[in-house]
């Protein structure tokens, strides 16, 4: 139990996927312009990341390891995640059109996202147990969402601010992201597994 709590704390704050491991930077910059889309994306990421860790862990433990095919991890995981997202999208469209309207456009965006891939690979590398891997997936995605929502909040305010012409657009966004990352550096080393 203590270990699970540690995993949650570490991957939300200490080892934040976006701000400390620099994974999933493109949705972090791409969809953080508005709070509404940021929240939609966050929900989609939480959903897919948890599912992806779950499925890839099972596949890795029961197929790849017994047959000594670990070197196929990356290829298999890409395949699994892409199919999974596609599956979820098709199912969602039928089962819950409202949820599909909310998450629909974000789902294909994260199919080949490096953060999702990173979670799957790291869960294997850290030799987590099944429960730990799932908790790790949830924690990592919440960490991602936290970073995304903070960024969206800041960028919504930046819209109203006077920014020097040379820094407008992506320049100020990258500077903001850098400062945010530095702020999260304050958590580093607080807790290790």
């Amino acid at each position, binding site marked *: 139990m203590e270990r699970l709590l540690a995993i949650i704390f570490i991957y939300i704050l200490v080892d934040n996927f976006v701000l400390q491991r620099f994974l999933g930077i493109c949705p972090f910059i791409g969809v953080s312009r508005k709070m509404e889309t940021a929240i939609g994306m966050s929900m989609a990421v939480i959903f897919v990341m948890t599912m992806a860790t779950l499925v890839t862990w099972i*596949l890795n433990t029961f*197929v*790849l390891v017994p*047959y000594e*095919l670990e*070197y*196929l991890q990356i*290829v*298999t995981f890409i*395949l*699994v995640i892409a*199919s999974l997202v*596609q*599956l979820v999208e*098709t*199912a969602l*469209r*039928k*089962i819950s059109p409202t949820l599909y309207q909310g998450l629909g456009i974000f789902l294909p965006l994260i199919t080949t996202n490096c953060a999702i891939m990173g979670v799957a690979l790291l869960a294997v590398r850290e030799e987590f147990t099944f429960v730990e891997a799932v908790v790790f997936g949830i924690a990592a995605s919440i960490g991602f969402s936290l970073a995304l929502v903070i960024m969206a909040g800041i960028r919504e305010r930046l819209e*109203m*601010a*006077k920014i020097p012409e040379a820094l407008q657009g992506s320049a100020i966004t990258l500077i903001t992201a850098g400062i945010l990352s530095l702020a999260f550096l304050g958590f580093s080393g607080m807790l290790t597994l």
Partner: protein
Amino acid sequence: MQIAYAIIALGLIGLLFGLLLSIAARVFAVKTDPRVDAVKDILPGANCGACGYAGCVNFAAAVVKGEVAANACIPGGEETTRAIAEELGLEVTDSEPLIATVFCIGDNEHAADLFIYDGVEDCEVAGRFNGGFKACGYGCLGLGNCVRVCPFEAIEIGSHGLPIVDPDACTGCGLCVEACPRDLIQTLPRRSGQGHLVLCSSQDRGKTVSKACSVGCIGCRACVKECPQEAIEMDDKLAVIDIDKCDDCGRCVPVCPPGTIYPRTALPIMPGAIEQNKEKAEAVSSEKGT
């Protein structure tokens, strides 16, 4: 041998997921109207929202259902309407092409400022701060709310501090009309620039107007009396020209003391144009000896 295992394993996993996906596609199939896609392809795809729907897809769905007329897509104009009508077998009702027109020429040279504003670049915010930084409480603040909302990049703020509408790029969608907190923009039928306009929106008394802005309508009624078509009427303290009645005789232009009346062919008002018009009007009126 190793490579064979890899191929078999990946092939099997791939096959498994492929099967799963194709089954899912069958089980969770959602029937969509093919006409919605057809209409969506015809639409400009700007997702501007001028039709009142969230995006082009939603509009397409509404048109197919018959909730809305095919000509509601303003940016698409006549061509789009016709194409949609053809696709769905509807009758065509023509819609007139519109253009956004800014009813203020109080630029930074002719309209007085009350104070230097150094806050948020937003007309709504600036307007609420002490009634705006311009002496005229009705005039354009030039902070570009209309520019930001325009999906077609048809408006820019000129060096004179007023919006310039690009007549080629403007589709008359009316988003800027809603965005302007001072209601200075209207969409008017294009009609290749027929008609004259009083480019002012001030409802202040003449004295107050002339103190705040040297080109604002002072409500003197000179143009109302001059107009042979009776196309000009007073809306409280502001003269308004009905472009349907106006026959472009131009007699109102020189009689206007502040020089607020412009032929629509002179739009958009570029930096410097206001001074020229004022001089021209003054020259004509001094010739007449009035």
